[in-house]
């Protein structure tokens, strides 16, 4: 039932460029799709596994730069770029994840945060590779089998296909035995150990997969923007992913998807100034953490349980 609904929604989303000719609205659609994928990846590591990772911002940036550099500097095409972005990010996640996950969860949060900062600094200061603050402009639109995805409307299909594939993959992962093991690690790690399961490989795998997906999403998004520069690593993106996950409900797959689509579209449509938008984001974050710490999905679940209890009485 849920899956049938999701399939219908996916097909409806695919039709967006047919419904409107406005590049602005289709552009918001692309942002919504890509941000939702990145938020779902954050949900995998934070919502399911219980590890708050700020490194997503770094992976997002690495993904963007790797994809752009594959095309511009190394003469590859967009598809290979996205693939390289995913693979390289998974490798980086394993390298920084191993020493960090051995420590406590406090150190993990702060390590990932510093990693995100490091990536920003490299993007700005390693001028020979990244061209520094100027960035890499005029990224060519991708093409496949002689068909060029040149306009925003055509690129929307790429973003759509990408996010549907990634979300399907993440859904399969989260609803599998692996997903349940991750939730168990979050809820009670000693118990997981007592069951004879070593948490480390699961945590590392979740971190690497979430990194790979975020990186690929970053790659797709740079080609929508057509430029990659250090602003691509603005903390704004991390805040957006976090707010999507928290409002949707950390640990709830569909809640985060719904929040991703809604929250990417809303601020654009309401047209706040950049400062005011960030202030509103901050207020939403603080209020949500106090009023509904488990997001809309968690709130609905609690209400459902309360009603059930009432009915049983």
């Amino acid at each position, binding site marked *: 039932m849920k899956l049938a609904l999701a399939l219908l929604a996916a097909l409806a989303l695919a039709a967006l460029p047919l419904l409107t000719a406005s590049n602005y609205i289709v552009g918001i659609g692309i942002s919504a799709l890509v941000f939702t994928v990145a938020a779902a990846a954050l949900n995998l590591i*934070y919502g399911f596994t219980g590890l708050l990772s700020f490194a997503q911002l770094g992976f997002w940036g690495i993904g963007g730069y790797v994809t752009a550099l594959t095309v511009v500097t190394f003469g590859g095409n967009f598809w290979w770029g996205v693939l390289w972005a995913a693979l390289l990010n998974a490798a980086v996640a394993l390298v920084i994840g191993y*020493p960090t996950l051995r420590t406590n969860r406090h150190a993990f949060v702060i390590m990932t945060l*510093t990693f995100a900062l490091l990536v920003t*600094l490299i993007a700005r*200061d390693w001028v020979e590779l990244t061209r520094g603050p100027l960035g890499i402009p005029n990224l060519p639109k991708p093409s496949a089998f002689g068909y060029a995805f040149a306009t925003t409307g055509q690129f929307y299909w790429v973003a759509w296909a990408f996010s549907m594939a990634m979300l399907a993959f993440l859904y399969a992962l989260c609803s599998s035995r692996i997903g349940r093991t991750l939730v168990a690690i979050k809820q009670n790690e000693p118990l997981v150990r007592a069951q004879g399961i070593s948490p480390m490989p699961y945590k590392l795998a979740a971190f690497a997969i979430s990194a790979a997906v975020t990186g690929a999403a970053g790659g797709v998004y740079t080609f929508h923007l057509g430029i990659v520069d250090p602003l691509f690593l603005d903390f704004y993106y991390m805040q957006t992913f976090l707010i999507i996950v928290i409002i949707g409900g950390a640990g709830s797959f569909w809640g985060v998807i719904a929040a991703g689509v809604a929250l990417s579209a809303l601020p654009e449509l309401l047209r706040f100034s950049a400062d005011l938008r960030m*202030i509103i984001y901050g*207020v939403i974050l603080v209020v949500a*953490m106090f009023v509904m*710490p488990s997001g809309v999905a968690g709130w609905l679940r609690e209400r459902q349980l309360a009603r059930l209890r009432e009915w049983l009485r």
Partner: protein
Amino acid sequence: MTVDAVYLLQLTLNGIALGLLYALIAVGLSLIFGVMEIINFAHGELLMLGAFAMTFALPVLGLLYWPALTVAILAVMLAGLAIYEVLLARLKPDEFERSILITLGLSIILIHVMQYLFTATPRMVDSQYGFDGVSIGSIRITWTRIIGAAAAVAAFAGLYAVLRHTQFGRAMRAIAQNREAALMVGIRPRVVARNAVVLAAGLCGLAGAAIAPIQLVTPYMGQFLIFKAFALVIIGGLGNIPGAIVAAVALGLIESWIGGFFEIVWQEAAVFLIMIAVLFVRPDGLFKRGGMRVG
């Protein structure tokens, strides 16, 4: 490459000043973590508020350095008190991730409200000392830098005395070492946590006020410092105050030396590489924590 002694001395002095600045922030973070087991993401914004308070107080008080410094520190302590009462007091000791997300929200709000009110244009402020300074050989150091560094050292000495010898500080250490036992002997965690937050805010206010006459003041100035301070707290061992000071001064020196001889990217990357290396060898930080130690 020949190493010029004067150049090296200059780098060293700059490094110590930078390290003391890091230490003022990292010590506050460590103090709050020791007592409440939470991380205050908005700590850098307290520094920014201190710097802004200094830029507004100095002209009003006729460029007098010390009264303005006092006003700035008190203002930031007040802000710390408000933050504790409104937000942090609602947190339970084990809600680490929640504390980060809440204070992250607060940090976003503070930065953008300040930017909205005062724009992102960097501000400069003059003090009674202007750009006067002392010369040692061919090196010149301005008074504002010397006073800033001396004030930091004095603040650490004061903090040590308070934590070591007063009931106020002993209660903080007691909570950090054994919460239940501290409760049993009648120490109130809420009051102690409030004191710790206000004290940490004061240190941050001092840092902000001291650097306001030295560098440009912008709403974003706290952000980059706070990331490094987080790393320092990890390197020094979470909740370990001397560890944080040692790590901070060492990092200031290392960054300054690297910055003097290598490309700038290495200077910025140093803290991260050091942190990775330290965590590989000692997952609990260089100076392992056992309760909150002050000496």
